[in-house]
């Protein structure tokens, strides 16, 4: 990590040797954290900048709707929509992000919000970012299909490959 601090900013409150030692320890801790990411870290950040896209995932947790589905079905849904069970989310939630660009988008956003609330218990705040909305639509479509498939009687407990085939 580049240390940009300048001694010209002093005088500072008097520091004891113990304070100085603790500061050195903190700097070492910071150094270990800043060197922790792998060599692809900068490239991933740059790719995010280039695409103006934040990492996204969707939280999945127990709502009544989920509880009607077998754990295996949840696993299948998760495998298909590319999110993790009980894995969070992110950045679909941007504070103050209600920047719908048109009435149509706003209506769809409200509709998606209601369905997301139903599935995910209000844990996800949708955005009107185009890519994120596409992900949400795809995710919900997969979940609806899966739910409909599970409403049909199964000859035996479905395994993951059966469910994948349905979808």
């Amino acid at each position: 990590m580049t240390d940009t601090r300048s001694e010209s900013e002093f005088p500072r409150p008097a520091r004891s040797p113990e304070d100085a030692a603790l500061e050195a320890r903190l700097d070492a801790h910071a150094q270990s954290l800043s060197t922790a990411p792998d060599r692809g870290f900068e490239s991933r950040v740059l790719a995010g900048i280039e695409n103006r896209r934040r990492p996204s995932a969707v939280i999945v947790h127990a709502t009544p709707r989920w509880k009607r589905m077998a754990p295996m079905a949840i696993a299948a849904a998760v495998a298909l929509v590319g999110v993790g069970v009980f894995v969070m989310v992110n950045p679909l939630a941007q504070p103050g992000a209600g920047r719908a660009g048109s009435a149509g988008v706003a209506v769809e956003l409200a509709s998606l919000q209601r369905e997301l609330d139903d599935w995910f218990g209000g844990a996800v705040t949708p955005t009107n970012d185009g890519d994120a909305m596409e992900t949400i639509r795809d995710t919900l479509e997969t979940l609806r299909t899966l739910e409909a498939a599970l409403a049909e009687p199964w000859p035996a407990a479905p395994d993951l490959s059966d469910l994948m085939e349905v979808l």
Partner: protein
Amino acid sequence: MATAEHEADPPPAPDHVAAAIVARASAGDQDAWRLLVDRYARRVYALVRARVGDAHIAEEVTQSVFVTIAEHLDAGRYREEGRFEAWLFRLAMNRLRDERRASKRRDAMLRRADAEFGSRRATGEDRAHDGAANAGPGVEALRRALALLGDADREVIELRHHAGLEFRAIAAALGEPLGTVLARHHRALRKLRAILDKGEHQKD
């Protein structure tokens, strides 16, 4: 101790190098973006990672900070005043607060889900401990001690040591006089040392 003369200290000197890079990045120069990322991304990551523990979340938050910067530059919402660094880390602190709020909601939901499903899944707190599992005992002690500090104390320490900011830049980022920031940092260090000396971080 900090003196009153600090209250009138000027803001950080303009960083003309950063300003020039930001101007090029605003114009879509990818090489300039690479320079900004090389210069700041790991410092943002260290600041976030110190608080959230989980490496993946720290990287997501870091990426989100840079996307936010790009969006602000796209929209012309950033006025270069030679304080890019302070602005960047203010954004990072805001995103960190968002993430911590989201993490608390998430953990509460996971606990409810655990109770319903009878399973045990990692919460944010667990993940922070997982992250520290690979660290040495000295680092783990420091991490535990930092966690016992109040938010304000921890904030100034992390901006100074993990983000690597000058005190003047911290003052600009927090909107506080330099003297106040110097005094806050001094007090926070003392508190941290007291925690370590008394072994409070070793208690459950």
